[in-house]
């Protein structure tokens, strides 16, 4: 309505050159392979290991299985099967590596296994894995790892979901739980942005560090805001990129910005902060580290955005502040990272709720608040 406060004039910028393709991937345009329409707003999405199926979850407690097999013209019809099994929302989706089982964990604390790709899937096994919400699930061999709002991590064994091990891991809600790519460790992250690394065999705590930028206690509202809303391992497995919301000035109106923080989980060192060039108000809901050397980040808030950053970042470090400046808090004493800007940005039609990448890196899916999932082909 009114103009922004005047800023000193700057010389007009030349239009940015089109981004160069990375290892054969041209991200300047997003090629849509399928638009999958569901009635209820979507919450999460994951490709099956063979990328034949896309699983989404929705606000009406249902789960959708979309068939991504192309027809004879090469088009994806996206035949949908609705699945009912949870008494609440589900945001945690995983699979057995052999494409046999779909594993879901819900806000009702239930862990379910379903046969994947059948015409009328029904839950095969069901256990009450946690009290309260489960937000993190991962599967490795026959082990199913979950993390819940009860602060516990639990392992159940396929195929019957027999309890194997469970322990109190965090003092607040767990937002992520994953096996490390080499399978030797378990990583978990919570509402306060703390990441813990556990020995897979012994269950001993190996390391703990904080992605502090992704959490804040909003004293005005008397509540914590933040958490690792999505994460993804680097191709070499040693780093992990975490996303969520940062710079929160008003938690209850969601005034803050998405941020993508890269950490070396084997040392606990924060390597880089990936930040959109143009400020976007919202939360990072999806992040995928592509093996071709780039990181995709998606966010929802006032609409949706998708950004891509190169992962060959050499991290510039901000010069130390002048010595005379009083040190106000511990965080400021840490090394200040100069944020790294994306090389490509796409405005999306709607608020992003989740994003996933197929195992071969060729397909990208984004789930939207409006009840639509879009599948894109990366080339």
């Amino acid at each position: 309505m009114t103009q922004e406060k005047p800023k000193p004039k700057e010389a007009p910028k030349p239009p940015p050159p089109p981004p160069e393709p990375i290892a054969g991937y041209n991200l300047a345009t997003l090629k849509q392979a399928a638009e999958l329409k569901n009635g209820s707003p979507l919450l999460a999405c994951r490709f099956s290991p063979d990328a034949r199926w896309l699983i989404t979850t929705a606000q009406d407690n249902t789960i959708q299985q979309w068939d991504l097999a192309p027809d004879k013209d090469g088009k994806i019809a996206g035949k949908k099967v609705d699945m009912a099994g949870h008494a609440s929302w589900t945001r945690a989706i995983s699979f057995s590596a052999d494409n046999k089982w779909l594993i879901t964990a819900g806000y009702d604390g239930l862990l379910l296994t379903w046969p994947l790709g059948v015409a009328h899937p029904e839950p095969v096994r069901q256990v009450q894995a946690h009290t309260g919400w489960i937000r993190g699930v991962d599967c490795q061999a026959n082990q199913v790892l979950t993390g819940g709002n009860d602060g516990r991590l639990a392992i159940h064994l396929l195929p019957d979901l027999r309890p194997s091990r469970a322990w109190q891991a965090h003092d607040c809600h767990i937002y992520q739980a994953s096996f490390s790519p080499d399978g030797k460790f378990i990583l978990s992250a919570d509402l306060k942005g703390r990441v813990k690394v556990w020995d897979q065999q012994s269950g001993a705590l190996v390391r703990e560090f904080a992605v502090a930028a992704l959490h804040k206690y909003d004293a005005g509202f008397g509540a914590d805001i933040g958490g690792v809303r999505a994460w993804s391992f680097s191709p070499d497995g040693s780093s992990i990129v975490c996303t969520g919301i940062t710079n929160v000035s008003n938690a209850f109106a969601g005034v803050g910005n998405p941020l993508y923080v890269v950490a070396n989980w084997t040392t606990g060192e924060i390597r880089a902060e990936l930040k959109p060039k143009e400020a976007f108000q919202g939360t990072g809901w999806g992040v995928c580290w592509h093996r071709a050397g780039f990181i995709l980040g998606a966010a929802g808030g006032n609409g949706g955005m998708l950004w891509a950053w190169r992962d060959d970042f050499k991290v510039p470090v901000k010069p130390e502040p002048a010595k005379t400046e009083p040190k106000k808090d511990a965080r400021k004493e840490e090394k200040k990272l100069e944020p790294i800007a994306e090389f490509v940005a796409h405005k999306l039609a709607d608020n992003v709720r989740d994003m996933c990448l197929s195992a071969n890196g060729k397909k990208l899916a984004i789930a939207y608040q409006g009840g639509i999932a879009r599948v894109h082909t990366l080339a």
Partner: protein
Amino acid sequence: MMKHAWLPLSIVGIALWAVVGSSIHADAPKIVPPVAKDQPAKTAPVVAVAKPAAVPAKSGQPLAIDAAIALDEPTVSSLASSPCDDLTFLRRVHFDLVGGPPTVAEARAFLADKDSARRSRLIDRLLANPDHSWYWSQVLDAWWMERRPAKHVDAKLWRDYLRDSLAQGKGLDTLVKEMLTADGTDEKTRPAARFVLDRELDTHLVVRDISRLFLGANLQCAQCHDHPRIDNYKQAHYHGLLAYFQRTYLFDDPKLKKKVLAEKADGEVEFQSVFDPKKITRKRAPGVPGGPERPDPVLAKDQLYISAPAKEVRGVPRHSRRSLLANDLTAGKALARNLANRFWAQLLGKGVVHPLDQIHEDNPPSHPALLDSLTETLLQARYDHKALLRVICNSAAYQRGGEARAGQPKNAEDRLLIARLRPLSPEQMGHALLFATGQVEAERKALGAKATPEAVWPRVEAQAAPFIAVLAAQPGNPDQFEARLEQALFLANHGHLQQFLPPRPGNLMERLLAEKDPAKAADELYLAVFTRLSSADEKVEMARALQEKDKQTALRDLLWALLGSAEFRFIG
């Protein structure tokens, strides 16, 4: 609005005869028997409270205050309370002109003064006193900065600037102009830029506060649409003011290492109403409410800047919209009218238009001719605030007594028929505690020959600060009286007040302990605390205290009790 400004002399004459004709008897006992209507008292006025009858409005002269009130409120001749007594007047005018109560010595001297012009002479004396500029710089600071913390400009330098301006007799219009044009680059004029700089050049805040504090019209609700309830607060008014500031930006001066103001030569204000379904965008050139739009002069592209903005270069346009605002704001009568209303509210406890930032057609002044008179007085005196204060303090309305008179209506205070019982401002209360206990006199005594205002005032201000902090409004809000529990707890229990009670050379307790005669001690105490003589009951109470074994404790408790009483907290 101006319909009462110029009147047939005959009407004025009758009205004034009525005002002056009612019993003005400064030395009279407290309770004056009500004077029957239409039958002026025979006693000749002892003190010349107001002289309007002798000087009826000449062409070009503003109507005198009391004459104006008589037009607005014809019952004033029959229903107004008698004038207040000398000591009530003394206390009132001391608080209003120098920010604290008179000392006992000053009170006794005034009681002894038999000159019929003693009140107006006192007013002149107080206005000439350096204390006046010290105190009124606090008032203007509280009005205009509303206790915002200092961010870019030293608050002391700002106060010095206000004080020097007042002492030099700088017109308030000039002061306002300087506040809007100073860019902070010159250390000499940088303090004037505090109004804008310490609002961090938040343009919406600056525009809101210019409209509230300088125009008396809170246009905040007109930012996004025409005001829903006030017909003459338009969205275009808001954006007209915004356009003056739109191009100004904060600039980090590389040499000064401070924030200063810079300005661009482009940038237009456009706005839509949130109520407009078609979302039509309108452009707005600068302009004050009710004034013409002020389009930019046409300049060649290479003529736009004295120095064009760049990195490390402060933008200075040839045509500065912000400087234009300083001119436009002070050109009409709106600034004078707002200031006149605020001065009246400061001295009488309520604005002629009230609330002070709601000057508009649906909220007419309670006394239109009075507001015109005050406005014209200020304009004719070229915004000399002392001229306005002098006229107000000399008026019968200001010197009205607080004793009710038979037949007065319920809203007699609002109708200016009786003195309003008004709370001390945070500054006045802070000073009052230090004056009443004799702390200020003790400080002066300790300083001896060095007791200049420059030496005494900083000490008074530092000692008053804790009181002011507990009484003042939150930053960014105007002060208003609130009786709050923590204020009572502070005054009752905190050590800050208690420390001023024990005897100290030159202070009240020292004098009380030295006085053997209970009647004299009681008068000393009541003159110091309430600026009045003690009553018979109060003398008995004092006698009892002096008989206590621990006389000092008893006197301290009595002194504290009076400081905690309503009579101390309010101006009668």
